[in-house]
């Protein structure tokens, strides 16, 4: 079996293990037999049924999709900028989404509910992307330096908006808003996974279609053009998809750090720079990592729940350092 094949198998097993542990473990105790009966539609305790089918299963699905979206987004940014430290929130998407969500949770008092918050976060993220691209495209072609600078500045602006709202809000609302910015899949239900699933599927498909051109882009824009890539089109599409994926991920799950940085970078270290391998293997890795991190977030201090962004950072950073050391030693 090839190295790639072994990697894919390992990651699928890891994802399956993470999903199973996510179904079995949680704040409430549900016997494995009840979990099985609920999943297979057999007669079982109604509360166990609700916990498994309406809480844990959608949550695992949302975690997996968020992990995939963040990983593909990070992979694209790293390819576009030819920088292994690029990450999904580079262009201010997270700050824009945070402002939207915090607005919904504080000024609007959370009356809109979870889906309202998701909608506001998505609108904020898209607004950030819109402003950044509008500025970067004003110079004619998409200029990387202008793009990054615009991202940093827009990020700072939206960040200030978040601070402003938080400083004015009631303590309860502030707490909810701060927790949101740390990332959580606590309230993710089936409704919220629909948009996430559609965008992730579409974004993943287009990214894979661009994979050979992304490979060529690693040689430089001129070299990629000589190899038949319509460079400007490839870059614009990839930047747009990467930002959109980050926006839907953040709006569903809050600001979850490190997944979009560590997983693509680690995958690149292990499997090399070919995006035809990197995108699917990274997506599997990102899904497994976030499902696992979310399970840890739920059970580590049971019944208290940790922000999943904290878990991804606490687990991801040491792992990343080990990888980095091994890879460049």
């Amino acid at each position, binding site marked *: 079996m090839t190295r790639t094949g072994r990697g894919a198998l390992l990651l699928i097993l890891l994802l399956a293990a993470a999903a199973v542990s996510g179904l079995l473990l949680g704040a409430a105790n549900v016997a494995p037999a009840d979990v099985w009966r609920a999943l297979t539609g057999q007669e079982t305790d109604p509360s166990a049924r609700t916990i498994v089918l309406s809480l844990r299963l959608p949550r695992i699905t949302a975690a997996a999709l968020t992990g995939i979206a963040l990983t593909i987004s990070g992979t694209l940014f790293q390819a576009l900028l*030819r920088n*292994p430290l690029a990450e999904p929130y580079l262009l201010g998407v997270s700050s824009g989404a945070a402002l939207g969500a915090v607005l919904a949770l504080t000024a609007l008092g959370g009356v809109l509910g979870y889906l309202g918050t998701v909608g506001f976060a998505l609108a904020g993220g898209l607004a950030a992307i819109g402003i950044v691209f509008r500025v970067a495209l004003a110079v004619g072609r998409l200029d990387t330096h202008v793009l990054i600078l615009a991202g940093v500045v827009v990020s700072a602006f939206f960040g200030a908006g978040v601070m402003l709202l938080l400083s004015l809000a009631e303590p309860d609302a502030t707490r909810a808003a701060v927790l949101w910015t740390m990332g959580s899949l606590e309230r993710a239900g089936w409704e919220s996974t629909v948009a996430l699933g559609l965008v992730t599927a579409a974004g993943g498909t287009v990214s*894979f*279609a*661009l*994979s*050979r*051109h992304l*490979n*060529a882009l*690693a*040689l*430089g824009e*001129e*070299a990629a*053009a*000589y*190899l*038949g*890539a*319509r460079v400007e089109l490839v870059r614009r599409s990839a930047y747009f998809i990467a930002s959109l994926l980050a926006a839907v991920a953040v709006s569903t799950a809050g600001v979850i750090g490190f997944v979009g940085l560590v997983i693509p970078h680690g995958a*690149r*270290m292990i499997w*090399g*720079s*070919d995006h*035809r391998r990197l995108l699917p293997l990274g997506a599997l890795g990102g899904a497994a990592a976030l499902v696992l991190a979310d399970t840890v977030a739920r059970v580590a201090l049971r019944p208290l729940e940790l922000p999943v962004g904290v878990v991804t950072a606490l687990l991801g950073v040491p792992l990343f350092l080990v990888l980095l050391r091994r890879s460049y030693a």
Partner: protein
Amino acid sequence: MPESAGDRGDAAAYRLEDVTFRYPSASAPALRGLSLELGVAAFTAVIGPNGAGKSTLVRLLGGILEPSEGSVHLDGRPLVSWDRSALARRTAVVSQDAPPEALRVSLRGYVELGRNPYVSPWAPLAPRDEEVIGNALAWAGLDHLAHRPLAELSGGERQRAKLARAIVQEPGILILDEPSAHLDFRHALWIFDALRERVRDEALTVICITHDMQLASRYADRMILLAEGEGVAAGPPGEVLRSPALASTYGCEVRVESLGDLGHSVLPVRARPRGAASGASSPMEAP
């Protein structure tokens, strides 16, 4: 610029008419009023001092830049009307850039990029693609290194890898920007020899920018001398190298010696002071 009778090709692959190109921020144009034809199945060497516009010419022919004035035609069609991947199947470019050190790719993976204009990302490479890649690796003498990381290869091996990647594009036209720069003479000789062979056997059209006058004059059918964005001489290498324009173009007195089968050697004698009247003296010639 006088068209010489020494052309080997019957038809032009590229035709440039009165091409002027100005970089957006530059005061002087990089190319001015350049007209030339590059023949099919011929080996054309382009020489000229640094800053003469040689690399700009490569980018124009490769379709990266569009002329500010004038026109570039490829196979009788305006170059701007060519689709990017169709152009990549017709013309391959070996530029000066080295592949980035950080690129984590095997030699074979790198050479495989040359198939990009032919393949879809959704399917694995067809047997025919594999065959083309295998042949190119064998041709470049790299098949035993196929699975080595590109970063571990020597400069000479990497240059041959770039050439193999271009050949994998199965181009009718190959444009090279100083392919022998930084190479020892054995590797430089191999490259010119291998290109000549493909011109003869596969009717490849080669356009090669170089500073190596000896190898260029030995292997090229035709030579073009560029200076300050203009074509100042064109024709058989011996004629171009012996023309008075050479010394004035480079601002350097030169001695040109015929080496028989091995082409000509151009030996710089003494740099002329800046601003000296150009073209006042002709190159000294050895018998």
